[in-house]
């Protein structure tokens, strides 16, 4: 819970490794592909344009071949029949305009409205772009040097065909290039995800751990690049392990050390009682007795809790455990306590085997039964069940006591939490011990309302088949 809120309130989050990789790969790749497409397009366009220019040059030379120079230098004649001119002009869908001028700028032949362009310096055909009758045109200029004078042939062609082929080139290039870019991006996304998969697995493995699970991470199974980091993490784990072992040992030692003087105190108290010290003060006797019992119980619970936690980090070897046997044993342990409160402690057990640590499972059940006896009123009914379902093995304790109100359900597994106003002298460690033991065994805890409105706590262990 706390971690989640921290993440939500976090300042600017540094980008994840995956995002960095994707951006670092995708941006330059897209740029490179884009630029290369642009260059390709320009090259293709130039090639197509020069082919069109070549065709225009052909028209120019065609026209030139029709010029008949007269012997007298002044006059020129265009030997162009109507059919030839029609041929020359037929260039659908483009329009062709032409003119031939002499060096004084007079139009000798062709269209009157062809504008005058500067005469090129040499005899090569040169090209410029222009606008004629409101349309873009390509203009070919050719200077012919005659003995007597100079002629300028101007041929203009509208640009429909050019536009058309440019459009074709564009579509012919754009689509495959786009496809390549998209494919590249997909490859980057997929590749990065694939490549980071082992990292994700390590992350998941660590995320799935409980705070007490301080086993080392298997280095051989992780990618080489992150092994140094994991090794540091393992060092940290071992430090934490030591620290928690020291802490657990301290709790256990303290509980041990406290037990002996408490035993002495209790013995002295029993002697005082038998000597009649509280003859006229029954209430005081019971208060002292309750207090001592409570301290004794708390010390026992502290020891159990410290040991359950220690087992988590030491990874005690689990064995096959019959929950039926565990339940049977608890019958002898709790029968007298139940009889004393007039509680009917019963069992409904069928064969159920799981893998685990026997004394811990015994401890977990003991805590559940102890709670049930503690909180169920005189004359109540408690039933201990175990058995197997298709996939699970379960162990549960049901009572017809007061149950637990909805609003406390979240907290009852917290250490030292006691429901406000609860009557008995519990110490708030019973259910945390159960939780810790359940966690160690990969079991789920279900807290339910029993049929008789009491409490029903069920531990569900993974079945033997699924555990193998």
């Amino acid at each position: 819970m706390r971690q989640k809120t921290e993440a939500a309130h976090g300042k600017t989050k540094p980008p994840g490794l995956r995002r960095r990789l994707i951006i670092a790969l995708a941006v330059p790749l897209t740029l490179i592909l884009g630029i290369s497409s642009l260059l390709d397009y320009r090259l293709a366009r130039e090639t197509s344009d020069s082919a069109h220019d070549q065709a225009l040059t052909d028209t120019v030379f065609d026209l030139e071949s029709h010029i008949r120079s007269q012997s007298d230098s002044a006059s020129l004649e265009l030997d162009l029949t109507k059919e030839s001119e029609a041929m020359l002009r037929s260039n659908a869908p483009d329009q062709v305009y032409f003119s031939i001028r002499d060096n004084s700028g007079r139009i000798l032949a062709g269209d009157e409205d062809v504008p005058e362009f500067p005469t090129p310096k040499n005899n090569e055909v040169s090209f410029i772009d222009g606008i004629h009758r409101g349309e873009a045109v390509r203009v070919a200029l050719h200077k012919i040097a005659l003995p007597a004078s100079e002629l300028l042939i101007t041929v203009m062609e509208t640009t429909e065909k050019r536009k058309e082929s440019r459009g074709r080139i564009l579509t012919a290039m754009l689509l495959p290039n786009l496809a390549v870019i998209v494919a590249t991006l997909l490859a980057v996304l997929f590749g990065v995800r694939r490549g980071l998969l082992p990292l994700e697995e390590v992350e998941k493995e660590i995320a799935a751990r409980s705070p007490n699970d301080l086993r080392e991470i298997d280095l051989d199974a992780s990618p080489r690049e992150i092994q140094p980091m994991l090794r540091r993490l393992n060092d940290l784990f071992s430090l934490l392990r030591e620290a928690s072992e020291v802490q657990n040992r301290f709790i256990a030692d303290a509980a041990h050390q406290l037990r002996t003087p408490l035993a002495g105190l209790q013995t002295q108290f029993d002697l005082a009682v038998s000597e009649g010290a509280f003859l006229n003060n029954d209430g005081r006797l019971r208060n002292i007795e309750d207090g001592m019992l409570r301290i004794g119980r708390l010390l026992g619970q502290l020891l159990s809790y410290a040991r359950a936690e220690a087992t988590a980090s030491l990874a005690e070897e689990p064995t096959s455990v019959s929950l039926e046997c565990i339940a049977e044993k608890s019958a002898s342990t709790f029968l007298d306590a139940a009889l004393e409160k007039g509680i009917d402690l019963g069992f409904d057990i069928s064969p159920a085997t799981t893998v685990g640590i026997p004394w811990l499972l015994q401890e977990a059940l003991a805590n559940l039964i102890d709670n049930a006896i503690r909180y169920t009123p005189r004359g109540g009914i408690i039933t201990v069940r175990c058995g197997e379902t298709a996939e699970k093995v379960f162990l549960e304790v049901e009572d017809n006591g007061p149950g637990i109100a909805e609003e406390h359900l979240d907290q009852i597994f917290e250490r030292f939490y006691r429901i406000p106003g609860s009557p008995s002298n519990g110490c708030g460690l019973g259910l945390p011990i159960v939780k810790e033991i359940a966690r160690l065994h990969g079991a789920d805890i279900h807290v339910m309302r029993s049929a008789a409105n009491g409490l029903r706590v069920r531990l569900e262990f993974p079945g033997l088949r699924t555990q193998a």
Partner: protein
Amino acid sequence: MRILIVEDEPLVAQGLKQGLEQLRYTVDVASSAEEAESFVQYESFDMALVDIGLPKADGLHFIRQLRARGQNLPILVLTARDSMDDTIRGLDAGADDYMTKPYRLPEIAARIRALIRRSNAIADACLRHNGLCLDTRSHTATLDEVPLELTNREWAILELLLMASPAVVSKDKLVQSLAGWDSDITQNAIEVHISRLRGKLSSGNIVIRTIRGIGYRVDAPEN
């Protein structure tokens, strides 16, 4: 009855001593394994209460030495540790029973009585329980000195229950133990035998309790 207490914590040792003396036992206290060692060499005790956590040599060591010399007095181990491991080591060393601190005087007294009774039963081959006596040698039973007629199966069931008392004996276990007598005995048959036994024991002070869903037990004897 003479009892040796081996315990280094004076508060506990003195409390136990006074408490047991009130119950008319003769009590000696040794505060270390070495001291206890010299006690048992020169004196004879009917029973020993031994704390495991002693200075220098621990209680387990003392128990092992005692057993190695062939002394078979009942030993009740007192321990501040209640981990499975410790109790198993205690029993393996030769202790007969263990109790975890803190304990109450009446509890200790009950355990001492049970242990002494058990060791006497081994000696005179008699299972005694609140006026009931099963003589395993002569195979005769008496209830408050009156001869009690029991069938073989009733005898077997009662013997199992008395030996286990105050622990619960499951019906399964009863069926398994009786299978040698009669291979097709059922849980229903067990119920019939139990109800006959209850009838035969009704004049005495023996309670055979039914534990719903598991089996039966005979309540601990009173004294």
